[in-house]
């Protein structure tokens, strides 16, 4: 077992043990916090596929997170009010079923990633960063000012959506569901990195011209990576909306994009468990520093700066040593 695998195992153990303890000690809020961390982790695992594998610095992942949230909000609000989503050319009803909502969130955010990717991947480097940020801002403004679905007020869903066989209103059951999804996506992400696609993508990031000589289109590889990445972050968005029973344009804001990126980098880019460690640490910092000072973001900023400047590849890098997991 490498040191990184040991660190990963400890993280996994904590994700099971801490909420287990909270259940025993009757501290439901700890479970809520853990759920928040797990959902953020899922969003960041999504971003990590674009960022770590594809080398795509997307500063607009809030788009997919928010669209996932709105997929949940729109479907559930129609179900809540017993109004069909559309009646022509055929009737689509709203739904309160999580699996349907998840699928919708994945499809919608994948389509958005495809469209944004087609435009943004015409460029690279700094242009790509600025363009993803700008398109994020565009959709944010549109969501605020578009009068249907609440605008800036967002959508409130009074009861959490259902999953067959579970009572999602019980915090630990909802947590379990989120954790299971995170683990499935982590497994998928690990397999993806080792698959021929992952290897080609990795090569496209490092030596694009050599990939071209073997007849692969690096832009197409990156586009696929961005679509997969966006779809996963969209799924996380649907879960986040269900955690809060609420969705609003804040989920689409550029600060949200920044935070998702922060999760990845605190933990370690291109590390399988980097986004997970990062999200857990962020939620902890937010909770602990927030309890100490009103100006806690100053300290958060300083911590982030130190992590970047130290250049050790995030927390996993510090604990497990240099050397990227997927390289």
């Amino acid at each position, binding site marked *: 077992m490498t040191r990184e695998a040991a660190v990963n195992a400890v993280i996994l153990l904590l994700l099971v043990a801490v909420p287990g303890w909270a259940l025993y000690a009757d*501290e*439901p*809020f*700890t479970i*809520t*916090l853990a759920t*928040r961390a797990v959902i953020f982790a899922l969003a960041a695992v999504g971003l990590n596929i674009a960022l770590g594998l594809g080398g795509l610095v997307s500063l607009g992942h809030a788009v997919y997170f928010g669209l996932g949230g709105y997929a949940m909000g729109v479907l559930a609000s129609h179900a809540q009010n017993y109004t069909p989503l559309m009646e022509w050319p055929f009737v689509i009803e709203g739904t309160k079923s999580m699996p349907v909502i998840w699928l919708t969130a994945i499809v919608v955010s994948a389509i958005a990633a495809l469209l944004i990717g087609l435009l943004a991947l015409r460029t690279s480097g700094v242009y790509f960063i600025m363009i993803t940020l700008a398109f994020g801002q565009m959709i944010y*403004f549109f969501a*605020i*000012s578009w*009068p249907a679905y*609440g*605008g*800036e*007020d*967002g959508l*409130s869903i*009074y009861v959490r959506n259902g999953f067959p066989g579970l009572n999602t209103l019980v*915090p630990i059951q909802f947590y379990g569901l989120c954790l299971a999804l995170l683990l499935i996506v982590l497994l998928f992400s690990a397999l993806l990195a080792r698959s021929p696609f992952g290897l080609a993508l990795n090569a496209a990031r490092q030596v694009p011209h050599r990939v071209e000589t073997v007849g692969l289109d690096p832009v197409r590889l990156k586009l696929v990576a961005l679509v997969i990445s966006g779809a996963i972050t969209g799924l996380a968005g649907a879960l*986040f909306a269900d955690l*809060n*029973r*609420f969705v*609003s344009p*804040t*989920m689409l804001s550029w600060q949200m994009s920044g935070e998702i990126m922060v999760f990845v980098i605190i933990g370690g880019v291109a590390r399988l468990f980097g986004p997970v460690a990062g999200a857990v640490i962020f939620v902890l910092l*937010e*909770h602990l520093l*927030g*309890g100490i*000072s*009103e*100006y*806690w*973001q100053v300290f958060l900023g300083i911590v982030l700066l130190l992590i970047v400047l130290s250049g050790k590849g995030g927390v996993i890098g510090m604990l497990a040593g240099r050397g990227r997991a997927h390289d």
Partner: protein
Amino acid sequence: MSMKTLLAAAALAALATGAQAQVKVGMITTLSGGGASLGIDIRDGFMLAIEEDGRDGLEIIVADDQRKPDVAVQIADEMIQSDKVDILTGIVWSNLAMAVVPSATAQGKFYLSTNAAPAQLAGKGCHPLYFSVSYQNDNLHEAAGAYAKSEGYSNPFIMAPNYPAGHDSLNGFKRFYEGELAGEIYTELGQTDYAAEIAQIRASGADSVFFFLPGGMGISFLKQYADSGVDLPVMGPAFSFDQAILQAVGDAALGVKNGSNWSKDLDNEANAAFVAGFQEKYDRLPSLYAAYGYDTANLMLSALDTADVTDQEAFRAALAAADFDSVRGKFSFDTNQHPIQDIFIREVIKEGDIYTNMIVGTAIEDRSSAYVDECSM
């Protein structure tokens, strides 16, 4: 996230005497980032009333929502699940209220609104455990509309940001104005440059301007408007002429008429004591938001005097009786548990070096809310 402080002197006193806190109140408000000044005033007004009362057995937990709905929801979860509060209060913004209030009341907690009171919660979504102590969102815009009508304006130009509260604002104005409009525009939320809109106003042949632009947007608009040479009378809801904002606008705001249900020169004993007490303690003039915070705390204290918070029916009745001295003078609750109160028109004036407001008339007497009939309570 939750900037969490135990602020109540009362709670400290309770700890000192070894008494157990019996009633827990959770205040979720905006203390950092943009819009923090509003939340700080609500908190300070609320805490002033708690300190003046000075009773034991009351614990106030204050947390910062950073004006983010998801953070507000998380704090509410923490307060309900972990701190086990009895009453929630403090939210400034309608979108945060919509995120927190329905689920809090569904979990059997009282919510007393210190500011935001969206239409949904006053009408179809009204709830026995939800009380708005401030107003219903449309009220102050309605007052401006009533004022425009009574002044005989025949062609006002009206504008607001393009988001739900902005749409409510223009609808509220039109509900009481009822005449012709020179123009009606929605601006971008967070917009800071209004040159294009001012040019449209100039070209529209309007005889007056009504606008709702909360926070920095209003500051920007007023400064640019004053410099544009357009010299039409301006009116709006009190939010853009709030005590904290006026100092940043300066002379540009002088003479503007605004609809408000409170003013520091309202002539009643409770208000005089509040304004003096607030200045004494915090060394600044109170704002509208501070007044709402103060009234909310006093309403809650009055209800605690006669009922036990665990007896929800009795406590609800005690709140609904509104048996406290409001700084607004007349105050009672309608069936949807939103206030019935007079709404005034104020004018921005300068007192020494300080910009503030003076009441110049009553726009609507005993105003309830437009949505009261939709509420089934």
